[in-house]
Structures are given as structure tokens and as C-alpha cells.
């Protein structure tokens, strides 16, 4: 079998910055190949190089057996490739309708008229866009834009599709549809797909993947292989004395994090027996504790792979058990929203949202781009007046005291809003003055912020040259200079690498649990939601479910059961078989088939027999609890909310 893509020791430089440092990989026909890594790790550059739209410095690249090393040679392969660049719908034409967009791409690719209409009809039906075909692209929701982008990329029947972060910021239902369609196309059209993502939890969707970090590949192979290559274990510890327990565990293990009411401990390069033994001996000192050991996930693996290089860079504001955690009253209501509604013209961005956050609590607002998360935050921070409903933030009423609210809160926006041409300390000083922190106190607070963010080494570095993770911690420091009791964070972790994200969460948990700060955070990373005490899932301006992560998961478990995950040698055949046998909740995850069942043991027996009959080999079986993505999809479906119509008057085209 000849390879579709062969990359050998490829290097790419932008002026003096090395974006790709000697990367090699090969992709077989019919594969769904994944590139996973944080922003700026070189994924996009590599995809552009392979698509023949970006030149490279050294190394070799063969696509369809053709050496690509010049503009002329790149032209040869372009007819067989479909490329969708990063940024949802950014490559589409906002003023054109769905139909016109597709026609443009088809005509650009010389698809004959009859074939174009036939294929367009097929793809639009598959993506459920037929009813919207005359709607202008600028009025589509994120999920619809993603689907339209996919149609435009597929319209000329490419043999290779290159999709750069097609699922970033898209709602879970659209994401699940996307993966279903992609695996269908790959199978039925003998296509090969190269897909990138910054979501670690999407790794299992790929047949083969490469983990990217700072322009290099950390690990390569099938998802299971990568996990197996790193020996590591996770323990979820529950204890009555949470802080004592954390303190005790931190003496032995480097990775100890609080997840809501549980403690998550990760250990690498250790056998399960040894890990359990160590854990037991420590927990003997903690009253009424119990634990549960699992194998690590890919995010842990990523951190594990980076660990040796980052030993001295870890943030250690670990909880101080000597400090009593009752210095604040946990029952003080810090944020309260009652039926908050906000309309822009006829469009309702936020629809009767109600929730409350107490001091010391981390509250997560989860949803896709455009679900209304940022609008909720803007109303609560006094930047936007609610159309209807009321609320209060640390005792100040939303409708009447906008200015008072602003004095009492810390706010960190999506873009961090730091000044790139100022140094770290200058930024802190500026924000201190903006928040009117008294001069004497400011010096102390700046010291505190530097220490909190482990920024002591970087005091005089220009912010523009700081890595994303440090910038994020600096922005957090700026938002906390005036010691607010309420903190709002609007997607603070988008595109940051797992280590940076973990360090950031360590700080947030410390702030909440030790200083009693009430934190409201928005994110579209499902995996991050686990850190929160309470969650609200948002879709199309509405809260569709609320509760603790455990509680929400339990609700889904009760309704649908747990997941049976089977690794099979013929995944497509297996899926088809199960669908025929009316297992409608069967989904493909790379080489695994996932199936929901409320009677796990019984179903498993039946299914294994069924597969055995058709000579499909089952390599292993696992039982998994529902993920938060499952939770989201479940509540969306049971609420019958279609994540489709979005008639929000989007920002006018840039000029």
C-alpha cells in the first residue's frame, strides 16, 4: 500500500521563528489522521505545507507520491486535495448564500454542472442544510458554518481532505455529526483525512495521530499505543478533609489537583500496584477517604511526555492546610442571576438564564461559540444592561449599580487585553492604577501577582514576547490586583497547552478554596468543566442543564446507561452491523465503537455474539461512564433544541 503523505524531517521557519522543527510522519490511504496540540505548536503550518500553499525550509514532502518542493509541483497535487483552513467559516463568503458558496467552490474546481447539482444535493441532505440553502452564510450558526465549510471542501470529490481545527468552538451535537459524516465520507469515497484539533478528548476519533508541541512531535501512533507507551495512573480520591488530604498527597505526588469535591492524582512510570500502595499509605493519615484508580487519558499523557522538560517550571501555590478554610462564609451569595434576558433587535442572545454562585465556588458556563456565554458575563459585569430579569453581584444590583459592580469584580476577557509593548511590571502597574489601588498597597499586590503567576523571572520582559501560558497568568494577576471577591473569566484557556491549562486551574482552585473568591468561568473545553463545582450548559441563549459534573453525569447514566467501548478490527463493518440491529446510539471513535446501554452486561453479550457471527474480531472491551460531551448532547436532544438557527446580526464585514 503506497502512502498518501510522506513527511520527512520537515522544517519551516517564519523569519527567525522555527514553526516546525524536523517533523516526520506518514499517512496511509483511508486513514483519519490527527494532529493534536495547543495553538502555535505548528499544526496549521504543517497542514498548509502539505496542502501545497506554504513553502518550507528543508526536509522532504511527498503527496500522492509527488515530491512537493515548488509552486509548480504543488499545482500538480491540488486537484486531488480539499483544504479547509483554520477559523470557522472564515474561508467562506459571508454575503453569499449556502447554495452560492457551494457553487463557487464547485466551479472553481471545474465540477460539471450536472455532477455539481447531484453532489450538492447529496451533501446538503447529509448535513441537513437543504432547508437553509438560500440563507446567507453570515447568518448561519457555528455548527452550520462548519458543515458548509466541509461541503465546500468535499464538493470536488478530493482524495485527500485537510481540515484545520474543524471542531473548535462548535457545539457538541454538531461536533458529533461532523465526525459521523467524516467517517462516512472516508469510508464511502475512499478518502484520506488529515484533521487537526486542540481538544485532547477528540484523540480517540483518529486512527493514527501525532501529538504536537512547540513545532515538534511528542508522540505518534494509534491513540491506544500512545497511552500504553506511557505508564501512568490516575486516582480519584474522595475525602472528608479535602485540604489535609491534598497536603498529604502533595508530599508524594507532583500532580495533585482538586476537581470539584474530588482530588485527582496522577503518577507516571510506576506500576499500578506500587501506585496503589503509596496511595494507601498516605490516605491512612486522612480520615474517611476512599479512592478509585483509572488509566490516564491523553491529556495526562501529554503532560507526562512534557514532564521531564518542565520540572522546574511548575506552579506551586499548593493549598496550605495550616490555613483554615473557613475564613470565608461559604454560603454568601456572590453572584445571582434571575431570568436574565438580553435581546439584540429581534434576536434573543440570552433567554431567561438563572443561576447563583457562592463564595469559594467555581461556576462553569459551558457552550459553543455564540451560545450566549459572553453576553451573560457582560450583563453580570455591568457592561451590558439586561433587557429583562434581574441579578446582583456581591450585593450590587445589575440594573441600577453598574459602576459599583465594576469596582468589586475582577474580569479577564477572551483576548486577555494586555499591552504587548509594555513589560510585565508596567502592565501590572497600569492595571493597578486603573483599578485605583493605593500606591503603597500596589507594590505589595504586584509582588503577590508576580509570585502567583510564577512571573518573577520575567518582570522586565515585554508582554508581546511572552508565551501564551504566562500571558494568561499575567492577565489573571492584573484582574486580581484590587482583591476582588468575584472573578469573571471569559474563555481564559482557549488554545493554551495542557500544562499551562493545568497550572492555571491550580491557581483558580487555590483562589476559590483558600481566599473564597467566587469564580464564574466560560469555556468550550468539555474536559475543563470537570474542575468546576457547578456547571450550566448553554445552547442558543438558554441554560439546558445545571448541576455538578458528577450529578449531571449521573442523570445521563440513569437515562441512557453507560458506554460500552469495543476495539474492533473492522470498525466500519461493525458500526453498520450494529445500526442494522437498531442500536441507534452506536458511534465510531477511530477503531472503537461506542454504544450506550442501560444494561451493560446483557447488551455486551448480545453485541459480542452479533459481531462474532460476522467474523468481526473484538480486540478489547471497556466500560466508560458518560463524558460531559455525552451529557451535553443528551440534554440538547431531550430539550429538542436545534442548534441551527442563528439570526444574530453579526458584526458587519471588515473594511
Amino acid at each position, binding site marked *: 500500500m503506497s502512502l498518501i503523505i510522506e513527511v520527512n524531517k520537515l522544517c519551516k521557519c517564519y*523569519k527567525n521563528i522555527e514553526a516546525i522543527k524536523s517533523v516526520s510522519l506518514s499517512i496511509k490511504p483511508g486513514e483519519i489522521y490527527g494532529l493534536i496540540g495547543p495553538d502555535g505548536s505548528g499544526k496549521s503550518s504543517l497542514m*498548509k505545507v502539505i496542502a501545497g500553499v*506554504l*513553502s518550507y525550509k528543508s526536509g522532504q514532502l511527498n503527496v500522492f507520491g509527488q515530491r512537493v518542493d515548488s509552486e509548480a509541483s504543488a499545482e500538480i497535487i*491540488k486537484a486531488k486535495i480539499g483544504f479547509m483552513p483554520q477559523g470557522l467559516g472564515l*474561508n467562506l*463568503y459571508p454575503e453569499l448564500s449556502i447554495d*452560492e458558496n457551494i457553487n463557487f467552490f464547485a466551479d472553481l474546481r471545474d465540477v460539471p454542472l450536472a455532477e455539481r447539482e447531484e453532489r450538492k444535493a447529496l451533501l446538503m441532505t447529509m448535513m441537513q442544510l437543504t432547508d437553509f440553502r438560500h440563507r446567507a452564510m453570515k447568518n448561519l450558526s457555528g455548527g452550520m458554518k462548519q458543515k458548509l465549510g466541509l461541503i465546500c471542501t468535499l464538493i470536488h470529490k478530493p482524495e485527500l481532505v485537510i481540515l484545520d481545527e474543524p471542531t473548535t468552538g462548535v457545539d457538541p451535537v454538531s461536533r458529533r455529526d461532523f465526525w459521523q459524516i467524516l467517517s462516512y465520507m472516508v469510508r464511502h469515497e475512499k478518502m484520506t483525512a488529515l484533521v487537526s484539533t486542540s481538544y485532547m478528548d477528540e484523540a480517540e476519533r483518529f486512527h493514527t495521530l501525532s501529538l504536537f508541541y512547540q513545532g515538534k512531535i511528542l508522540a505518534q501512533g494509534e491513540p491506544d499505543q500512545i497511552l500504553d507507551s506511557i505508564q501512568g495512573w490516575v486516582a480519584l480520591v474522595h475525602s472528608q478533609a479535602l485540604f489535609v488530604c491534598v497536603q498529604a498527597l502533595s508530599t508524594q505526588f507532583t500532580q495533585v489537583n482538586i476537581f470539584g469535591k474530588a482530588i485527582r492524582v496522577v503518577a507516571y512510570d510506576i506500576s499500578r500496584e506500587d501506585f496503589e500502595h503509596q496511595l494507601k499509605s498516605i490516605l491512612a493519615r486522612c480520615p474517611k477517604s476512599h479512592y478509585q484508580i483509572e488509566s490516564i487519558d491523553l491529556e495526562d499523557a501529554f503532560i507526562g511526555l512534557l514532564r521531564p522538560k518542565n520540572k522546574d517550571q511548575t506552579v506551586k501555590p499548593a493549598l496550605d492546610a495550616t490555613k483554615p478554610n473557613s475564613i470565608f462564609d461559604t454560603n454568601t451569595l456572590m453572584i445571582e442571576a434571575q431570568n436574565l434576558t438580553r435581546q439584540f433587535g429581534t434576536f434573543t442572545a440570552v433567554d431567561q438564564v438563572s443561576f447563583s454562585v457562592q463564595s469559594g465556588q467555581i461556576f462553569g458556563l459551558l457552550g459553543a461559540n455564540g451560545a450566549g456565554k459572553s453576553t451573560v458575563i457582560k450583563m453580570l459585569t455591568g457592561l451590558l444592561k439586561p433587557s429583562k430579569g434581574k441579578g446582583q453581584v456581591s450585593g450590587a444590583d445589575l440594573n441600577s449599580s453598574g459602576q459599583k459592580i465594576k469596582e468589586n469584580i475582577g474580569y479577564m476577557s477572551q483576548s486577555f487585553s494586555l499591552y504587548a509593548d509594555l513589560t510585565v511590571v508596567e502592565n501590572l502597574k497600569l492595571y493597578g492604577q486603573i483599578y485605583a489601588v493605593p500606591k503603597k498597597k500596589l507594590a505589595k499586590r504586584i509582588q503577590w501577582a508576580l509570585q502567583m503567576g510564577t512571573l518573577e523571572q520575567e518582570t522586565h520582559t515585554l508582554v508581546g514576547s511572552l508565551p501564551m501560558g504566562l500571558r494568561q497568568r499575567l492577565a489573571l494577576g492584573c484582574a486580581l490586583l484590587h482583591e476582588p471577591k468575584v472573578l469573571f473569566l471569559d474563555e481564559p484557556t482557549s488554545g493554551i497547552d495542557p500544562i499551562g491549562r493545568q497550572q492555571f486551574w491550580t491557581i483558580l482552585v487555590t483562589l476559590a478554596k483558600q481566599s473564597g473568591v467566587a469564580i464564574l468561568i466560560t469555556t468550550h473545553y468539555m474536559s475543563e468543566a470537570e474542575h468546576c463545582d457547578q456547571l450550566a450548559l448553554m445552547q442558543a441563549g438558554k441554560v439546558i442543564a445545571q448541576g455538578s459534573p458528577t450529578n449531571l453525569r449521573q442523570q445521563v447514566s440513569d437515562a441512557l446507561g453507560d458506554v460500552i467501548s469495543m476495539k474492533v478490527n473492522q470498525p466500519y463493518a461493525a458500526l453498520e452491523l450494529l445500526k442494522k440491529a437498531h442500536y441507534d446510539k452506536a458511534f465510531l471513535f477511530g477503531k472503537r465503537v461506542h454504544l450506550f446501554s442501560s444494561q451493560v452486561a446483557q447488551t455486551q453479550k448480545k453485541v459480542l455474539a452479533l459481531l462474532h457471527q460476522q467474523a468481526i474480531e473484538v480486540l478489547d472491551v471497556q466500560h466508560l461512564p458518560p463524558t460531559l460531551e455525552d451529557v451535553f448532547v443528551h440534554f440538547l436532544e431531550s430539550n429538542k433544541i436545534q442548534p441551527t438557527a442563528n439570526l444574530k446580526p453579526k458584526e458587519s464585514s*471588515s473594511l
Partner: protein
Amino acid sequence: MKWSRIKTISTKEWLEIWRDKLYLAMAFLIPVIMMVVLGFGMSMDVEKIPFVAIDYDKTEQSRDYLHNFSDSRYFDYQGMAANEKQAESMMDQNKIRFILIIPPGFQEKLQAGKKVQSQSLIDGLFTYQSKVVKGYVLAINANYNQQLLQNWFAKKQGMKPSDISAMLSPVSLETRYLYNEQMSSLWSTGSGMIMLVMLMAPALLTALGVVREKESGSIFNIYASTVTRTEFILGKLLPYIAISFLNLLVLTWMALVLFGVPFKGDPVLYLVASVLFVSCATGIGLFVSILVKTQASAALITLLGTMIPGMMFSGLLMPVSSMDTPAKIEAHLLPGMYELNIVWGSFLKGQGWSDLWGNMAILALYSMVLWGLAIWKFKKRVAS
């Protein structure tokens, strides 16, 4: 090269312009607005200069003298001021540009056959205008002197005024202006403005149109497809050339009707030359767009790069023949001068093919070079 792909790109481009109301307004309104604002605003005529007079004499003779100024179409009489202080404060506030002071004893001295000195204070901030005003003042004053002399001779010698006039100024000079008979600056700047506006607007529109795709990322659709460079650039430019040509027709109509400029040349020649010039101007925008990455820088570079040469080195404000050598070279290197030759030649001079074909050939060459450069410089496989 496939015509179908060029058509695909052109159609898409046109649909985008048509549906994006802001862009559409920009495409069609900006040239018209520029034409009106610059056409009237850049008028170099010095007329209706506001002025006040201070008459310390207040006699029949002094009023007669003042009338020579206030009746002139070059001056706009704002009334009498009591003293210099009052008048100067009006000058400070930019209400007037010129003060006329008639000294006491004006009539008395003149009647006694003595010399009198009146005074004019002129705002010197606008040097060109000030010089023109000084010229007017001297001319009116000289005219008045001659009148006095004529009257005196008439009274003393009993001669006919025409004989006296023939005696006092035997050589009379007859001046006639060619091309712009009425010396209306609207005629020359108004029609010349077509050149300036149609240099700036198409360049700006084209540059933004291409860079817009780079900024949004949709240019990657082109990079990743099998469309050739020539197809893309032709497809992209055709709508802008069409829009610009339409605009040029509108501006021509404005020059004819709004500014009342006559058209003495060959309309066919003018239309052919216009197509060439519009291709040239879009070529400039295209070339800029290939070099830059953001709409802001594209707009800035195109505007500066077309406005300054278009005004200073085209012959619009100063004839190319009276420029110093470096400026002259610069004027010959830029397309503005050639188009201005064609516009003025067609509107005011009534020149035809035999006079203007050279200018047209240069414009054609110019656009071919720009387009060629743009196609050559456009890469479908970029470095960053």
C-alpha cells in the same frame, strides 16, 4: 486559461460587492463625493475677498475711491470699521482678508493737487492669494489715478475722454485666454479632477478587494485550488474595472453638467483612453495588494501613493514644463500626467488621435507592466 473559472471568480466578486451595502456605497459614492469636494474645493480662483474700509476722511471723494473697491467682483465689502483696532481684530478672527485705510484730508489734499497716501493691509498667511490681492489693489488704485487724471485734463483742456485715454496710455494690451476662455478654474480643475479621482478610487477599491480575501483567509481557497494565477487576477479585476469605468462615465457627466466644462474632442478616443486609464489605476491597487497583508496598510499605501503623485506630479496644480528636473522625471514616470493630457486635450483643447495617441500608448504599456508584475509576484505557495 479557462474562461469559466475567470467568470466564476468575477461573479462571486460582484455578488459580494453588490450584497455588502457598505462596500457598494464606497464603490459608487466615494468617487462622486471626491469629485464634488475636490472639484469645488480646489478652485484656485481669488474672488470675493472679504474686506473692510476705514474712512477717516468721510468725504465725497473718499467714498468715490472706496466704491472702486466695493464694486469690484474680486472684493466683498463687509462695511466700514471705526478704527484700525476694530478692523485688525476682524482680521485676527479670519473674517476679512484685507483692510483699506483712507487717511483724513483725502479730498482736501487731492483737490489742492497734493499727493495722498492711502493704505491697504493684506492678510499675508496665504502667500499666493495675498499676491493676487495685492495685484488687484494696485490695479484698482492705478485705474483710479488715471480717472482722476482724465477728469483733470477734461476739466482743464476740454478734451474728449477717449482722446485723453489714448494720450495717457497709447499702447493698449489685449489678452485672450486659450482653452479656458473664461479663466474659470472649475473648467480646468473640474475636468482634471476626473484624472485624480479615477486614479485614487479604483486603486483603493481593488487593493481592499484583494487584501480583504487575504485577511479573512478565503485566499486559501484560491491557493489550494487549481485556478491559475492569471485566471485569479483577471477574474478578480474585471468587476473593479467595470465599476470604475461606470464611475468614470458618471464623473465625466458631472464635469459636463455640474461644472459646465465644454467637451471639444473625440468621444471615442476619450472612452478608449478611459478604459486604459482605469485598467492602469486598478493595476496600481492590485500591485499594492500583493505586497501587503492588511486592509489598513493597503488603504494607506494606495491613498498616499496615488493622491500625492496625482496632485503634485501630474500637472494638475503646476504645469509639468515648469517643474524642476527631478519633479519632471517623476511626473513622466507616473500615469497621472498622461491621463491629464488626454482629459484636458479632449475636454478643453479639442485634440484628436494624432495628438494624444502617444499618451494612450504609454497608459496601455503602463497597465500591462503593472498587471504582469502583479501576476508574476502573486504566489499560490507562500512563505508565510
